[in-house]
């Protein structure tokens, strides 16, 4: 029974990722695309968790942490770039 539910959830998340991909491609402004990419990163984390349930192995659970960290760092770098044009700066007053 759990397997069936997990398959349904995987299909739901795949549909959600395709929907978000539409926003990444079409999105009118750059921040729209970054928002959608961040949400896709979160969906990948959920997808890895569900895949490890269907495969009945705990070998992929480190990948959850790895993808979480990578999605967060990517989002921070993108938004820093969008705000000032540089990623690492020394200006502390803003």
């Amino acid at each position, binding site marked *: 029974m759990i397997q069936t539910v997990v398959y349904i959830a995987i299909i739901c998340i795949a549909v959600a990722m395709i929907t*978000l991909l539409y926003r990444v491609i079409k999105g009118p402004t750059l921040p729209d695309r970054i928002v959608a990419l961040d949400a896709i990163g979160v969906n990948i984390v959920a997808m890895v968790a*569900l895949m490890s349930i269907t495969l*009945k192995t705990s070998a992929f659970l480190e990948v959850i942490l790895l993808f979480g960290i990578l999605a967060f760092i990517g989002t921070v770098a993108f938004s820093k770039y969008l705000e000032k044009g540089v990623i690492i700066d020394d200006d502390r007053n803003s």
Partner: protein
Amino acid sequence: MMIEIAKYLIIAFILIGAFFHIVAALGVIRLPDVYTRNHAASKAATLGVLCILIGTFLYFYFIENHFNSRVLLGILFMFLTAPVAGHLIGRAAYHSGAKMSDHSKQDDYKEYLEIRNSKEYQEYEEYKRKLEES
């Protein structure tokens, strides 16, 4: 008995998580401007992924008899970083000049920026810096 209850709990958590992911994707598609889309993506998707990770943790704990601390770390990490990422994107979008939707009524950050960029506030800052130096 315990395992049966745990099975229904796992199923409930996973279905709730998948539902929130669908809601987040619909929000990103349907809402009118960047700020509302960011609101949908950062809140609903975070709740969905937290539910799915809790379901995964319960599955490995009750059915495979394996206490996995990495999933707990992942839950904590997603819970901490997702709001921070959403806030950073919103701020960067505002500073890069993304337009609000026509239905938006209020813009408090604009008032704050006007006060902060006014001449009086700049003079006040300079005076304060001189006091600290002396």
